[in-house]
């Protein structure tokens, strides 16, 4: 396998509704990544599109719909998706295109338009359930995550305020992000604890917002990358893993599939002790409790220990183990697949020292990004190195 480098990244504004079509959003993100890398469409060997369920955009054959905006016309092209896991899975697909040698330069574009679905993007999630057992109960996805959060809190005896700290940290971290939808410099734990209860224990400020947006990443073989960059940032390891779809037959307190994916990525990256060797992480945080569960799944701490590290300030941007320095989904927004912008582009910006106001001060060398999807069952992990 060849080593793969990241040479450019781009992302659009994230908002509840953007005027641009999916193609136009793809174009804007791709254009920024191309400018960053200093390449043109002719330099691209292959294009990978990541976009989550078709039901959001309401356009089936969504990959085909988006491709001309993703610089893919007359190129080898593929769309990949596994729900919320897509934002990290799409760059993994990009990685195998380049690592295998079939492409020297591959573009990864992720797009989501959740603003098209009415009465609410939640309606689209109905189409992801089992039609016989889950749908007749008029299930809302938030109910499922509320149940998962409740299980996690009960098993480890975690207080709600220790979970709310994550929302506060991430919305504050997002203040330095030009694309952010919900940055909030002044938010407090009380604001989260006093926000509307939508499905106990989930309150309104525990949840990331639905968003429109796109992001893009340009991958290149390490050899060729030296043509564009002095010290390329490389992908050191990738991993992915999925658990049984029968979610009512699993204990939801721990994401073992994330742990499996992390072990696969760490093995490839030659990481024996993730707690010591990893400098910062971008775990998937569509809900505040998910950041904590995913830190545990990524083996960055013991089961039930993540809320304690958060309380002690370890996960702050200037802490020992900065978590979600981008502002995460909670602060920057959650256009499902396009969260590649926080989970992978941010690793690149941080490792390259290009994160500006968001820059981790301690000169990070290794970062891990992770996403989570399908029906609480998919873990996708990427490790990047300077």
């Amino acid at each position, binding site marked *: 396998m060849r080593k793969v480098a990241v*040479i450019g990244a781009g992302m659009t*504004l994230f*908002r509840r509704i953007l005027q641009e079509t999916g193609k136009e959003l793809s174009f804007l993100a791709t254009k920024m990544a191309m400018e960053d890398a200093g390449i043109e469409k002719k330099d691209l060997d292959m294009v990978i599109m990541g976009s989550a369920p078709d039901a959001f955009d309401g356009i089936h054959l969504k990959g085909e719909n988006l491709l001309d905006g993703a610089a893919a016309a007359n190129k080898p092209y593929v769309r990949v998706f596994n729900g919320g896991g897509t934002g990290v899975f799409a760059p993994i697909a990009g990685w195998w295109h380049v690592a295998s040698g079939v492409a020297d330069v591959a573009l990864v574009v992720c797009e989501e338009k959740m603003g098209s679905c009415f009465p609410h993007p939640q309606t689209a999630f109905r189409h992801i359930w089992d039609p016989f057992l889950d749908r007749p109960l008029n299930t809302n996805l938030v109910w499922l995550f509320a*149940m998962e959060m409740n299980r996690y809190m009960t098993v480890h005896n975690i207080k709600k305020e220790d979970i709310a700290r994550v929302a506060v940290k991430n919305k504050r971290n997002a203040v330095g992000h030009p694309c952010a939808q919900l940055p909030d410099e002044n938010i407090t734990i009380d604001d989260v604890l006093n926000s509307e209860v939508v*499905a106990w224990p989930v309150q309104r400020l525990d949840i990331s917002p639905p968003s429109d947006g796109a992001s893009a990443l340009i991958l290149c073989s390490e050899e060729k990358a030296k043509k564009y960059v002095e010290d390329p940032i490389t992908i050191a390891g990738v991993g992915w893993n999925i658990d*049984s779809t029968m979610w009512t037959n699993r204990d939801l307190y721990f994401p073992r599939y994330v742990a499996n994916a992390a072990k696969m990525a760490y093995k490839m990256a030659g990481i024996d002790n993730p707690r010591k060797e990893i400098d910062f992480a971008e775990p998937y945080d569509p809900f505040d409790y998910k950041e904590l569960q995913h830190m545990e799944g990524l083996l960055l701490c013991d089961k039930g220990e993540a809320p304690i590290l958060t309380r002690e300030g370890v996960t702050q941007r200037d802490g020992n183990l900065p978590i979600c320095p981008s502002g995460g989904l909670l602060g920057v927004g959650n256009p499902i697949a396009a969260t590649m912008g926080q989970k992978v582009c941010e690793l690149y910006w941080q490792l*390259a020292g290009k994160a500006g106001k968001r820059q981790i001060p301690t000169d990070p060398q290794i970062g891990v990004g992770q996403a989570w999807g399908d029906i609480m069952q998919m873990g996708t992990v990427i490790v990047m190195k300077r």
Partner: protein
Amino acid sequence: MMSMKKEGYPKYAPGTHVSRKDIRNKNKTYTWWEPEVQYSWAMGPAISRFLQELKNGKIIARCCNKCDRVIVPPRMFCEYCYKPTDKWLYIKDTGTVETFSIAYLDGDARRIKDPILIGVISIDGASPQHGFMHYFGEMKPEELHIGMKVKAVWKPEKERTGAITDIKYFKPLKGGGK
């Protein structure tokens, strides 16, 4: 050559924000679409039998002889042993609350005043943590807790249709649990 610049990336944030008011006032053009597609999903033998048994007021599971699981919802194969399951087994209509939520949000994310009590119930007679999602009733939201013993409340026989909703909800099981 890219250099380690101190300025922040992304350097700009392209995109045009549209408010709901813009849409209501038709400041932006749009096309409205209502999909009219109908589906008829094949349930397969396991779920078909499971729902037919609910119509009879019974909960049925499948057993895997290799891993010794009693599996509900039933399936014709064991996804872990990756072999066909071996036999049908009636189990009880009582169980334990594995987890729950008190939802003030309906399926379309509309706010509701009277909360929906929803959770996962592991069914007595099945393997640990084997069960399904359902509603709770005949209890106050504050009574609901993980580990609570509950029992199915069935619709009257005439109203049952062979659906998961043939069980109306689960209620507290008197004398059971902590």
